[in-house]
């Protein structure tokens, strides 16, 4: 059997973290190919429902990455909103039986290509230890029995 390869959905803000990912690319920093990137205008525009949907649709981990607080955010305080949302969502995930570690918030500036590559490497390692998201199993069990 092949080793479990986690699927990660990454919401990267247009102004800092997406540019950071870009820098990782042009600098040829190596990181595993487990990430699906979604570029958003701001980490503060990532609705909690997007994150829950990602988990439901088969993501094993979700990364929300934005500009460094306090003052880097292009929209002044979007990153702080993202920070509060993620903290609340982690509590919710715990109650719903999802490991909060599957959701990660990181501040990655446009100059931090190395950090971006490191974060992805760490996430892949952590998720390999956690295993597949249990919501994937729910999908299977729902079709198997009617209750």
């Amino acid at each position, binding site marked *: 059997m092949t080793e479990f390869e986690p699927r990660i959905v990454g919401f990267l803000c247009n102004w800092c973290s997406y540019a950071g990912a870009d820098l990782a690319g042009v600098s040829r920093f190596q990181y595993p190919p487990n990430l699906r990137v979604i570029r958003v205008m701001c980490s503060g525009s990532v609705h*909690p429902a997007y994150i829950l*949907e990602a988990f439901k649709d088969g993501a094993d981990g979700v990364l929300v990455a934005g500009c460094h607080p306090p003052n880097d955010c292009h929209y002044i305080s979007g990153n*702080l909103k993202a920070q509060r*949302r993620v903290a609340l969502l982690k509590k*919710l995930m715990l109650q*719903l039986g999802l490991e909060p570690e599957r959701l990660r918030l990181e501040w990655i500036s446009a100059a931090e290509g190395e950090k971006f590559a490191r974060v992805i490497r760490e996430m892949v390692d952590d998720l390999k230890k956690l295993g597949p998201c249990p919501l994937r199993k729910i999908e299977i069990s729902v079709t198997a029995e009617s209750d």
Partner: protein
Amino acid sequence: MLEKLKFGFYWAASCGGCEIAVLDINEKILDVLEIADIVFWPVAMDVKYKDVEAMPDGFMDVCFFNGAVRTEEQEDLANLLRRKAKILIAFGTCAHIGGIPGLANVADRREVFERAYLESPSTVNPTMIVPEVSVETEEGVLTLPKFYNTVKTLDQVVEVDYYIPGCPPPPTLIIEAVQAIAGGSLPPKGAVLAPPKSVCDECPRTREEKKIPAIRRIIDFEPDPEKCLLDQGIICMGPATRGGCGAMCLNANMPCTGCGGPCPEAIEQGSAMISALSTVLGLASEKEEGFDPEELMEQLKDPVGTFYKYGLPSSIVNRRVMKR
């Protein structure tokens, strides 16, 4: 004289409040009886399931179905009434989005039984009996409907034509729905028969859109009856909840808990509120080095019970992950 319409009412996993709500329309109930005969109403009339089975398909013009679906019996009745009714209406929060019974989705069948029949302080059950689907006795085999692990909304079981939200639905919404049925002016199928705007739109309180530094509860202090409760630090689900209730709870100095369900176009009620609350909650220390957002959120003890009090079965993650 024109033939009267035929109405049916049924209750599934519910508290019975929706049945009372039908009578909350007061003397208007007489108008209902003028245009309609009630052919099935277990709470008030002795009509057996086999009598319903004997009805031709599409016999009832409208069936008002309240309650969530949590047992085999309720699922069977949902299927039966779908066949027998031309229009099936999910009546009240439980049938619409899951309701309070839906909170049981944080547990499974075994945990619900253990709590209800073994652990609860008022229970005396020395022989540790919990419900079984079938039991052999001297007199023969006794059966009970299967109790599912997961509570479902009505539209997760059968096709639903309309929804009337509210726990219980406010009299004005019921009257408007009956008038629309009688007058043939129902909106397109699948509609929620309530105004599209949020509870805030109907709320008389003034909102200053302040940042709130701490979450407070209604038992902690006496809130100002003129000001927005959210501004005062009380979690009010108003911004994420569909109106139509006239902000009844707010007028009684209590926060909205979200029984109206999500606003139209909202992906999900609970996460809409998580998003809204995260926007207004904020501390001055937030921008400082070493700030721990999880400490801020520690004030919120029960996210599922707060944001998904009524909507857990219809939300994106509709139950706690089942333990293997």
